[in-house]
């Protein structure tokens, strides 16, 4: 390995020292990265693959360096794409990714024996290395012992103890990070052979006076309840149910506040800016963006809860409890985490499948994830459930709206499981069966900073999505709905009083480009009870589901600019027997809900699927099967509800 050390192949930013952060999952790596880089981290992708790359600059006592947070791994003997990246980054001969100047290895003091195995592998690479020792406080609490200076002597590399989050420790670390060139590779790299490695670890731990921490009694006590066959299962379902209740009840007043703010803004603009441009500003821009922004409180709450569940260690327990059930769908407990993330948005859900070592599991989970009820569907559901069920209807203590909502979530989850099972069954029966394993970390109080960063990232992602896709689509749609432009002469020709704004709006909409498109696809959706106005929304929602809400809002505003919701409820459509019916009657609304439950109405999801699988095949299959499923199920629901009503 003599030719292998000091391996520096390609440097991305010339002149800047780059240090890579390596550690196993649950070692406090992300917490440390966030503490060191603050919110100055950049996310990107590694070339050729879609493993997320986190990089941030760290202020050291002597200038800035770039810290790269590598994916968490238990071994450099990679079995997943994420782990492969760690190996590639550290390998000086792999030119596809830049090799760092030095490596910072995170060791969890409570799992030191296992962690030394990863450290041994990193030390074999031969880059200048330093060790950060985390959870020393937990080791002490659990009556473990460790002599840090002795450990440093035995390892032959610098060891810096850090109780993540305390300023003093980080000060020492920032000092060390100022001069990674002074870090050393050990004089003799640790052995590879299993027996020799075990002896090396024994010898190092013995010299460092390491006493294994006692089994965490607090964790054991909590687990005896949370993983109890009866109580644990009960707690799991209560937790998940509470999960949904929180995003509906707690978010409502906040949403009302946002809504009120945008209504006020739209009103001010409508009063002061007259003509078509005023209409564009208040209806298209403020109305469109506002009706999506209103869901920000829910997204923040959702990610807040996921971050807390993850940071506390409960998410692993949930995966443990769910593993057997996920196994029914041919998946593993960890896929549950991906599917749970898909509840927020299919995009993080699909990206979370990278933690699954098996390619077959990844594909199956990816195909299933878009069926989980994402927050964008939520915006559609809230609108449609509001039209379908009266808010005052209650079954005992449970509101009917919440119940329908719960059924929609459950339906999405069940459909996802079924899909995963089918895909698992029919995709490549060959290929190695990779092991299932899952660390059960001690229960820890989630770090406020990590939770805040997770929520911030989610909110930022949602907002930039709103800013980019939705704003453009809203503007294009407003144009489609209002073009070709009509003048006073057009209205007179059609026998409409040009001063009657309601009548003129209706005329413009009925003769717009959007209406042409909506009418063109009418035969496809007619059996579901959709008319061309709904079709416009469905077509527009391909860019992102929440656009459906904005579009219907605009369609309704064209009918009755003063009260779009009332307009939606009162919209009429020919019933096919020469009469008129409410457009959003029970069968149509139920069919629409069903359609959105199953259909892949999201270009961003398709894009991310293309990136994750590296081919258009899987996104095409996903879009195709989901459309067929959505249409069929919506048809069934429409027929059943029509028959009952």
């Amino acid at each position, binding site marked *: 390995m003599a030719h292998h050390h000091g391996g520096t192949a390609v440097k991305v930013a010339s002149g800047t020292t780059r240090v890579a952060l390596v550690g196993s999952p649950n070692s406090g790596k992300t917490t440390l990265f966030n503490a060191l880089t603050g919110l100055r981290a950049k996310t990107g992708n590694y070339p050729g693959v879609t493993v997320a790359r986190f990089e941030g600059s760290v202020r050291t006592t002597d200038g800035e360096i770039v810290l790269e947070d590598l994916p968490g791994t238990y071994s450099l003997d990679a079995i997943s794409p994420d782990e492969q990246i760690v*190996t590639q980054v550290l390998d000086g001969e792999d030119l596809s990714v830049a090799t760092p100047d030095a490596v910072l290895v995170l060791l969890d003091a409570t799992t030191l024996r*296992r962690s030394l195995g990863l450290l041994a592998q990193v030390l074999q690479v031969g880059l200048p290395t330093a060790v950060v020792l985390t959870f020393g406080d937990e080791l002490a609490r659990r009556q473990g012992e460790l002599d840090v200076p002795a450990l440093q002597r035995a390892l032959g590399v610098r060891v810096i103890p850090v109780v993540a989050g305390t300023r003093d420790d980080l000060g020492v670390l920032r000092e060390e990070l100022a001069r990674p060139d002074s870090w050393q590779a050990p004089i003799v790299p640790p052995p590879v052979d*299993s027996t020799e490695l075990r002896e090396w670890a024994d010898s190092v731990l013995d010299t460092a006076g390491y006493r294994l921490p006692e089994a965490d009694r607090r964790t054991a006590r909590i687990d005896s309840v949370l*993983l109890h066959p009866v109580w644990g299962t009960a707690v799991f379902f209560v937790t998940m149910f509470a999960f949904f209740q929180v995003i509906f009840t707690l978010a409502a007043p906040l949403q009302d506040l946002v809504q009120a703010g945008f209504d006020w803004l739209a009103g001010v603009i409508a009063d002061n800016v007259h003509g078509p441009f005023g209409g564009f500003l208040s209806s298209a821009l403020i109305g469109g963006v506002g009706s999506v922004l209103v869901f920000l409180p829910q997204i923040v709450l959702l990610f807040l809860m996921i971050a807390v569940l993850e940071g506390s260690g409960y998410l692993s327990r949930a995966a443990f409890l769910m593993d*057997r059930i996920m196994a029914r769908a041919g998946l593993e407990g960890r896929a549950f985490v991906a599917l749970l993330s898909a509840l927020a948005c299919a995009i993080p859900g699909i990206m979370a499948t990278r933690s699954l070592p098996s390619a077959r599991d990844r594909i199956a989970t990816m195909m299933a994830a878009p069926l989980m009820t994402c927050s964008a569907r939520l915006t559609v559901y809230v609108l449609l459930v509001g039209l379908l069920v009266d808010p005052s209807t209650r079954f005992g203590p449970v509101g009917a709206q919440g119940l329908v909502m719960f059924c929609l979530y459950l339906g999405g989850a069940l459909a996802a499981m079924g899909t995963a099972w089918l895909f698992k069954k029919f995709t490549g029966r060959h290929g190695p069966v990779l092991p299932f394993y899952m660390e059960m970390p001690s229960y820890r109080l989630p770090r406020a900073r990590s939770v805040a960063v997770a929520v911030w990232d989610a909110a930022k992602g949602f907002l930039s999505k709103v800013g980019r896709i939705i704003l453009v689509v809203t503007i294009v749609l407003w144009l489609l709905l209002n073009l070709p432009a009509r003048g006073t002469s057009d209205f007179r020709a059609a026998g409409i009083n040009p001063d009657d704004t309601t009548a003129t709006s209706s005329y413009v909409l009925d003769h717009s480009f959007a209406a042409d498109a909506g009418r063109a696809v009418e035969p496809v959706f007619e059996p579901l009870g959709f008319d061309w106005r709904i079709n416009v929304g469905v077509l527009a929602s391909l860019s992102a589901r929440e656009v459906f809400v904005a579009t219907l809002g605009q369609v309704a505003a064209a009918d009755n600019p003063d009260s779009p919701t009332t307009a939606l409820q009162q919209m009429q459509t020919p019933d096919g027997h020469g009469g008129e019916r409410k457009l959003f009657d029970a069968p149509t609304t139920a069919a629409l809900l069903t359609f959105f439950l199953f259909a892949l109405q999201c270009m961003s999801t398709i894009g991310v699927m293309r990136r994750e699988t590296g081919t258009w095949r899987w996104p095409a299959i996903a879009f195709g099967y989901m459309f067929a499923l959505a249409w069929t199920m919506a048809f069934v629901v429409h027929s059943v509800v029509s028959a009952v009503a």
Partner: protein
Amino acid sequence: MSLVSEILAGRQLPAVEASQADADTSATSLAGLRVGDEAAVTGFAAAAPAATTRRLHDLGFAPGAPISVIRKAPLGDPIVFRVAGYEIALRREQAKLIRVDA
């Protein structure tokens, strides 16, 4: 593939054949233990895929390592083991591959 991962992928771990009597009962594997039992790893089933055994090894299931069974999931699978000072869940399928001296 990099040099280090090539070296790591070339690791050989001891394969331990189950004796005839144990072959079906999985009595000498981790899957055969009950909650509270303790044992030491002796090696891996000969039929186990090499990449799987290497990963199990890196997770702490190395020959000689003491293991205790902490709990089983409500339906008996997966199983939480304590190894190398931490807790990890394995499915029966994988636990069967790990031979112990009990």
